[in-house]
């Protein structure tokens, strides 16, 4: 639910960032999905009730395509949302790296030791995002990791501590 109005911005940020531009990308992606569906053996398999296995998926993809086309043609087509106007490639990179780090934290915490990995992840994150001095970030990270560990342990979920061995 946005509730954030889709007000346009005045500056010229290029066609690609207008609603029409983004919708064109979305339409492209849905066409790729349609091609995937059309070439998948499973999608055409007929089931005992007469429906094909991919029928409802295809309905969803067509609906997405229709909405994307509607966005390219409706009265908001020339508008550009403030956030889309400002977003840069670096922002996307930050988002993807953050997600990759989250996954790395998960894998390492479960393979090595939650109480070793989580404080490093938290302290690193806090410091990168602006917590100073580093000591405060480390202290807060250790505190939070231990509190999370204890809370989960209390409700019967043992987070892995293969090295510390609690």
């Amino acid at each position, binding site marked *: 639910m946005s509730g954030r109005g889709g007000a346009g911005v005045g500056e010229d940020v290029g066609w690609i960032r207008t609603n029409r531009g983004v919708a064109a990308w979305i339409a492209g992606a849905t066409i790729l999905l349609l091609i995937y569906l059309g070439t998948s053996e499973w999608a055409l398999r007929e089931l005992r009730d007469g429906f094909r296995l991919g029928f409802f998926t295809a309905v969803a993809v067509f609906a*997405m395509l229709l909405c994307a086309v509607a966005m390219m043609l409706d009265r908001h087509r020339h508008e550009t*949302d403030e956030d889309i106007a400002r977003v840069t490639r670096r922002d996307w990179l930050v988002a993807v790296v953050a997600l990759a780090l989250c996954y790395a934290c998960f894998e390492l915490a479960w393979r090595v030791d939650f109480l070793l990995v989580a404080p490093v992840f938290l302290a690193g994150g806090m410091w990168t995002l*602006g917590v100073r001095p580093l000591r405060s970030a480390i202290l807060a990270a250790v505190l939070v990791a231990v509190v999370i560990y204890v809370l989960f342990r209390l409700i019967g979920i043992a987070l892995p501590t293969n090295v510390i061995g609690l």
Partner: protein
Amino acid sequence: MFNVEAFQEALVLVFSFNTLMWLAIGVFIGVGVGAMPGLTATTGVALMLPLTFTLSQAAGLGLLIGLYKGAIYGGSISAISFATPGTSEAAATVFDGHKMMQRGQGKKALLMALYASVTADFLSDVITIMVAPMLALIALQFGPSERFWLMVLAVCLLGALSGAHLAKGMLSAALGLYIGTMGPDPISSVARNTFDLWWLADGVHLVPLVVGIFAMGAMLEKAVELMRESRRAQVLKDSVKGLFSVGGEGLTFREYLSCWKEMAIGLGVGTFVGMLPGLGSTVGAFMSYGIAKQVSPEKRIGTGRLEGIAAAEAGNNATVGPTLVPLLAFGIPGSAVAALIGAALMLQGATPGPRMFELYPTVVYSLFIILLIGNIFNLGIGRIFAFVYAKLGELPAPLLVPIVMLMAVIGAYAYANNPYDVLMMLVFGLLGYFMRMFKIPEAPLVITFLLAPPAEENLRRGLLINEGDWIAALFHSPLAIGLALGVVVLTWLSSRVRIMERMQAVSREAQDG
């Protein structure tokens, strides 16, 4: 029918120190579990079930029901404080709750969530106690055709939730439909739309989806914002000090009463949704929120309004009592939590079912009394948590973002100990971030994801039962025809509202120009 002796015995059992203590512990753990993203009421109740082996009947019931009630409310605490719904049923609370938090009205929002939850929960419990067998009979009238139309009716509320730009709202709904088709086909159980990934065979789960789109999406947005600002202030000291100060605007009785309409909608919708097997409290919350928005467009629900919080929270907590209706009336659990409570009852020697009132009246009365007084405990313990979280929500973003990200990862994993759920949650985090950037509303996605698969399942089941006869499958009973007419009326009404809004906007633009 009323057995005075058994009732008196139940009163003695429930109002013993032991039972009240376990009820309080249950609510305390429940609110805590609910407030942690990914940990659901079901997980909490399941983890505590073995503990009831060693407790008395009343104490065991107190622990589980207290935990259930606490967890359903607890989800709203982190939804309001960090825009991170602790449970999927609290996702609808994010829209208004977090906006109020950002305006410095976190305490007010949290108290509204608590009072709406407790009010609707209490009243729905009373309804359950008074008319459980009747409610159960109504629920039986809903077969595949009726359920199909009910889902369609609920999806029609999307118009109200799709925001200012209809095409974006509908795109979100279509995306939810697409994600909902991943996993087993409802009739053949054969996996579909899984991109040949075996671990997607039973589809996308609600918890990783909601945690990803709401929590991770919001945190990525904040992280990007912080990296962009490159602010390197010493932010820790002052803000942590602030945690120990008392303040913030509370909720007045007048404000609480002003949301009566939304609480009533939540109560009605929640009670109805709760007694139907398989729908659950998330559907209750979203439907109640959507109806409240549709009924009172002038209140501008969605812009940080108490009414929005009241509707969503009343809608989810009102399912708690009624979810036990099929269990008590027929011995059939209507939800995962009801199955666990049924198991706890069986372990204590009382098999749930129609003869329960006759065979184990003390247990039934104990259950009813616990359902009611659990709300009082929820009120007290919920307030403590609300104040602590209201303060935690004021922590600066650089501290909060990594913590919520870590909690989202643990929560997505703890849900089923499935590492692929973490992966899904992160992918949905990126999708959530894109949706935020491009102002695509999240509510239609969650609604169609929740409702389209059961709609398809019931449509196809109806067709299968009626050997492919569409008319018989769709208009099986007067109730089905009534619901179909309801769909037509609702569509007509919402298109009228939309046209009027559009005309008002055009005339405003003309005046401004």
